[in-house]
């Protein structure tokens, strides 16, 4: 009798086994990608989100996901427009209710628009190098994470770099702060003023009206001021115009140091020779010498699953930044699984906890093949930034070359500014801050 049914039983057993495999494979970690690939800043988004998606696919191909959980995503195009960003968020949040990786909008405006909504919906919002910087204080902003570093800490790190170049003394020096006349450009002023008071240098602030494609007057003023350095907070066409204008008035480019929004290939290539020698801060290095970048090209593009049509973007500053953002996001999923269950998809609340308890050491970065791609990161309830370090890189006419190690901004000077601002925000919004000593 048993003999008669043996093939049927075997078939049933195989089917069951397959079904169980299907159910395991069905476990998916969803990433709502509120991104931009077209419009005025489309090329920036193409490289960043290309790198981000390539890394998710890399984890799926190389490790078969995080403990078997496959990384999935859905993109929604914002064109770097705040209203469209909110629309995308509303469209994707339903799908993100069960499992959600951190949201990366690559836009300060969209981040500001989502900061309250994401907290209400319990979806973590990552703002790596942009967005609301006082969200460093996680007691007031539990769901917002200005990870790695902020505008103010970056400005402080740039001043530290300049100080080191001047034998540790900036007294009597003159530094021009040339900035995009917008919320973004004004963010670092408070840090620059604090540094000027501390280090006794003269700070000259020169704003540039949007879009910044005309800076003749500003650079004539800079020529008249004869500064020792220009710290530069530009965006889009303002970057190339500044470099060209500096050339026009004969200001040396190796005395100009920009923020990380001014330090990608897209910012310097259009300026041609005028960009040679120019320096900019960055929280991720460029190039394919980083093992994981080279491996992505082999594994993901080898399997014909690469996200970029233009492979030349692999290894650029913004591509590597997208990869580093994805590395942190996937590490957060891994961390969340350690606490809430391996092999399961994590929801927004669980990922939020993980983002607040990241501890990515150099040893871990090495294991990920991301040595020196980004600095060590250790977050906590009262420090959603986790690092505050940048490198200074210099454009040699063909590529960005790091000219410093990781430099940390003056935390003792800058972080109290965040706390004061967050406290004010909590007061205005009627938020009772969490007690970070009770958070684990």
């Amino acid at each position: 009798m048993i003999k008669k049914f043996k093939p049927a039983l075997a078939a049933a057993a195989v089917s069951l086994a397959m079904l169980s495999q299907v159910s395991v494979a069905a476990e998916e970690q969803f990433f709502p990608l509120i991104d931009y690939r077209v419009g005025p800043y489309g090329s920036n988004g193409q490289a960043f989100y290309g790198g981000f998606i390539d890394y998710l696919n890399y984890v799926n191909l190389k490790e078969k996901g995080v403990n078997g959980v496959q990384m999935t995503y859905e993109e929604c195009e914002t064109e770097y427009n705040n209203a469209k960003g909110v629309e995308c968020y509303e469209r994707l949040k339903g799908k993100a209710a069960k499992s959600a990786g951190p949201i990366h909008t690559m836009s300060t405006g969209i981040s500001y628009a989502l900061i309250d909504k994401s907290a209400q919906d319990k979806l973590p919002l990552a703002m790596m190098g942009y967005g609301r910087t006082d969200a460093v204080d996680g007691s007031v902003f539990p769901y917002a994470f200005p990870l790695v570093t902020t505008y103010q800490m970056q400005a402080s790190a740039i001043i530290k770099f300049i100080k080191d170049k001047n034998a540790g003394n900036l007294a009597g020096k003159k530094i021009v702060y040339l900035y995009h006349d917008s919320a973004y450009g004004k963010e670092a002023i408070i840090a620059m003023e604090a540094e000027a008071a501390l280090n006794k240098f003269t700070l000259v602030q020169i704003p540039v009206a949007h879009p910044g494609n005309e800076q003749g007057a500003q650079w004539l003023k800079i020529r008249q001021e004869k500064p020792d350095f220009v710290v530069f907070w530009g965006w889009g066409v303002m970057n190339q115009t500044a470099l060209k204008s500096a050339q026009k008035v004969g200001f040396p480019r190796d005395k100009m140091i920009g923020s990380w929004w001014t330090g990608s290939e897209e910012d310097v290539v259009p300026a041609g020779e005028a960009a040679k020698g120019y320096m900019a801060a960055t929280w991720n290095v460029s190039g394919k010498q980083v093992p994981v970048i080279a491996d992505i090209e082999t594994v993901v593009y080898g399997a014909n699953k690469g996200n970029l049509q233009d492979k030349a973007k692999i290894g650029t500053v913004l591509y590597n930044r997208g990869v580093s953002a994805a590395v942190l996001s996937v590490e957060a999923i891994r961390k969340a699984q350690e606490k809430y269950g391996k092999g399961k998809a994590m929801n927004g609340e669980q990922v939020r906890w993980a983002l607040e308890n990241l501890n990515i050491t150099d040893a871990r970065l090495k294991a990920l093949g991301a040595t020196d791609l980004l600095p060590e990161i250790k977050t906590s309830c009262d420090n959603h930034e986790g690092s505050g370090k940048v490198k200074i890189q210099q454009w040699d006419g063909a590529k960005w070359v790091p000219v410093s190690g990781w430099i940390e901004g003056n935390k003792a000077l800058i972080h109290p500014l965040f706390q004061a601002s967050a406290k004010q925000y909590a007061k205005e919004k009627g938020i009772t801050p969490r007690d970070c000593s009770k958070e684990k």
Partner: protein
Amino acid sequence: MNFFFEVLIGGLLSGVMYALVALGFVLIYKASGVFNFAQGAMVYLAALSVVGCVEKGAPLWLAIILAFVIMTLFGIATEKFVLRKLVNQPPITLFMATIGLAFFIEGLAPLVFGSEPRALELGIVDEPIPYILDNWNMVISKFDLVAAGVASVLVAALALFFQYTRIGRALRAVADDHQAALSIGIPLQNIWAIVWGVAGFVALVAGMMWGARNGVQFALTFTALKALPVLILGGFTSVPGAIVGGLIIGASEKLAEIYIPPVMQDMFGGNFGGIEGWFPYVLALLFLLVRPEGLFGERHIDRV
């Protein structure tokens, strides 16, 4: 005083760059009475066509010719598919059509040639002229002087074209009244195709100068923002007006950017820089109150 003149001359030369863009608006307005919202996008398309052809292996001279062909074909296509059906429609309808055209170009151009910002090398270095720098301690850029020369030649050629050629006179007749022009046998379709082609050529020149200066990228579409106050000042129908308007706007915004903020800071505290974004518009608005048709615009008198 030296610094004042340095700012003034720098402003005048910047104004020439604004005038280059404004010229394209004037051409279309003269021929069709329409404010062409797509002029900034055309500047972008023209510059992108040049770098796109260079990237595909064409030498610069050939890329410029190919870009001119692209802009001419674009002009003909605009007449055939957009404007032809809108003859005798109110100007606002034609204006709305150009808004649609702008969005179309802004989407299509990067799709064809890519959206990455790129350099455009014309072989003119944007550096100060050493002789002037050494003897007068003033920064005057070689590139800006070349741009001024190009703009002067372009204005002279266009002024002569409108004033003394048969097509030029036909263009002006069409601008006055489409129907009347048609009734006396002026081929409206050909005229519009020609004027859009010429506007495409002007966009090509402007796109190359602006592209060489700041890189070829989407922000070239913003150059139109600087052309608007120039047009209000110079008049929508005057080619020389575009140049004079450009010079006034360029010089005044630079002088304002340098000299007004310190006064405001002394009076109110805070930081008042970055005013050149709005100053030209305020100036143009004030000018509108005194002379609504602009410096060289045609005074429009209707019989009641």
